[in-house]
């Protein structure tokens, strides 16, 4: 999937139509050779963005000229990368590849010699903490999630354990975050909690300061993706929500209580990724059916009728099952 930059058109009353602003053409000399897995804007301004792909490279692009400013080559396919949104003292990009080592690439110097060792299989997701600029979380196919402080030479800070250290519940050896591969990682917007999803069809909420499993039970969160699953959390809502791609729908849960609010149906094939825009409180989701949909909260409240004696229950109107489809044109 090529990275698209899109521009919004009208206000909320008109259906949103995304216009593709720019894209790299297929005969661009620097285009990726295989599927692009992760794209991220430079956190501080939009002059630069990074993209990583299955062709074992991480490319840094200049937005205005659409040329690559730098290329980092790796020995294995790159599953995911992330740059810290709050970092001021470093410009490290964490890269998760098919090898068991997490690589940190420095944008200032162009080197990628900093390696974090500790996982045993491929790294499927990496995420920096939005609260502390040196804390990194990595998730791997060996069922482990590790929290690292990148300044520390001697290994990870915490390995998350789903049983919180109680041997009595663990079937196999402890210290696993899930009973299968761990596919996706997302910090909550304040950085105090971490959500992980795994191929055991579970989603878990962890306290990111001590690595404790909060044991919130979301039920079955179907996950049959063999690569990473990119899910997202809301930011700025009164009770925060997590939006998880669930087959061809998107499941919406409240984070701290585990209740499923709704399933957003609109895509025709499996949803690969979704991202939340906190300024407009909108969710954008991309899927294999070649569409990006924008999900807008319905802003009107139900008008209470005069002849009803009981008042309608006040649901949070922000995410009440309204979707407006927006097809990308071209």
């Amino acid at each position, binding site marked *: 999937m090529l990275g698209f930059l899109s521009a919004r058109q009208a206000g909320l009353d008109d259906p949103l139509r995304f216009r593709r602003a720019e894209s790299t053409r297929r005969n661009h000399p620097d285009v990726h050779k295989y599927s692009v897995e992760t794209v991220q804007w430079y956190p501080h301004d939009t002059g630069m963005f990074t993209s990583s792909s299955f062709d074992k490279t991480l490319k840094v692009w200049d937005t205005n000229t659409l040329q690559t400013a730098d290329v980092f080559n790796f020995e294995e396919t790159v599953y995911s990368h992330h740059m810290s949104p709050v970092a001021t003292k470093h410009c490290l990009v964490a890269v998760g590849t098919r090898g068991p080592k997490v690589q940190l690439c420095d944008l200032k110097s162009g080197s990628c010699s900093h390696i974090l060792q500790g996982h045993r299989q491929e790294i499927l997701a990496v995420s920096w903490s939005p609260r502390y600029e040196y804390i990194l979380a990595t998730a791997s196919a060996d069922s482990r999630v590790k929290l690292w402080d990148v300044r520390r030479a001697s290994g990870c800070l915490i390995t998350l354990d789903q049983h919180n250290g*109680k*041997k*009595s*519940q663990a*079937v196999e050896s402890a210290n696993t975050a899930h*009973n299968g591969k761990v596919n996706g990682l997302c910090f909550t917007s304040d950085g105090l909690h971490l959500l992980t999803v795994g191929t*055991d069809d579970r989603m878990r909420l962890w306290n990111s300061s001590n690595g404790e499993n909060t*044991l*919130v*039970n*979301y*039920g*079955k969160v*179907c996950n*049959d993706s063999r690569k990473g699953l990119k899910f997202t959390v809301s930011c700025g809502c009164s009770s925060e929500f997590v939006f998880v791609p669930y*087959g061809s729908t998107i499941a919406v849960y409240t984070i701290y*209580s*585990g*209740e499923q609010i709704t399933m957003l149906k609109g895509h025709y094939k499996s949803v690969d990724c979704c991202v939340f825009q906190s300024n407009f409180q909108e969710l954008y989701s991309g899927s294999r059916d070649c569409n990006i949909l924008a999900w807008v909260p319905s802003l009107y409240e139900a008008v209470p009728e005069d002849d009803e004696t009981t008042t309608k229950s006040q649901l949070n109107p922000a995410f009440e099952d309204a979707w407006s489809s927006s097809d990308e044109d071209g």
Partner: protein
Amino acid sequence: MSQKRHRLVPETFGLKRRRERGPVEADPLRGELGSARAAVAELVQLFPRGLFEDALPPIALRSQVYSLVPDRTVADRQLKELQEQGEIRIVQLGFDLDAHGIIFTEDYRTRVRDCVLKACDGRPYAGAVQKFLASVLPACGDLSFQQDQMTQTFGFRDPEITQLVNAGVLTVRDAGSWWLAVPGAGRFIKYFVKGRHAVLGMVRKAKYRELLLSELLGRRVPAAVRLGLAYHVHDLIGAQLVDCVSTTSGTLLRLPET
């Protein structure tokens, strides 16, 4: 003279039968709110004691509790409190990682005492089982026991632990750790797995792979289902193997698409 008919043709011929509106009943099995303890008490009523000749204590499953208490986090928390207070025991039923059986401690103790001691009167492991019931059960509320816990804290020797495994009270999990088990639960697990598969098959074979709950409960029970349709339906709903959709005709069970 008015030639106009004052009654509609279908009414004249009695085609439109007026349906009697019976009292609106709450859908069976749904709409129970309350605590986890009330849910477990209700579920053990559904357990068919006669099928096992009273040799097994009534076992409920964690997924069944989820179907009665809709908020899973609250249900988990309440079950954990009950476990810590010693009112229930949670047992790992080997067929699934998440399948935990819930038994009231009193029931467990009386059944194990009655049937195991009856079966092994005079055999060497009666003493070990007595000691286990008296000392370990009240002290440690976990699902499993470790080697050093058993030998040092509770003073069991290795031959005694082997006797406990032979009696069926413990199941080997790893080198040096054991699950708590219910003696004679193998038959229950076999019936349960077959029955779950059979009830799921009933929904799968229905047209559009969905069935009204009231219709499912009213159907003839297939031979593979020995524990009762209601018991299995609670488990399927709680384990999210079927989706529960509320319609105007009641609850509908539908197989999930994926």
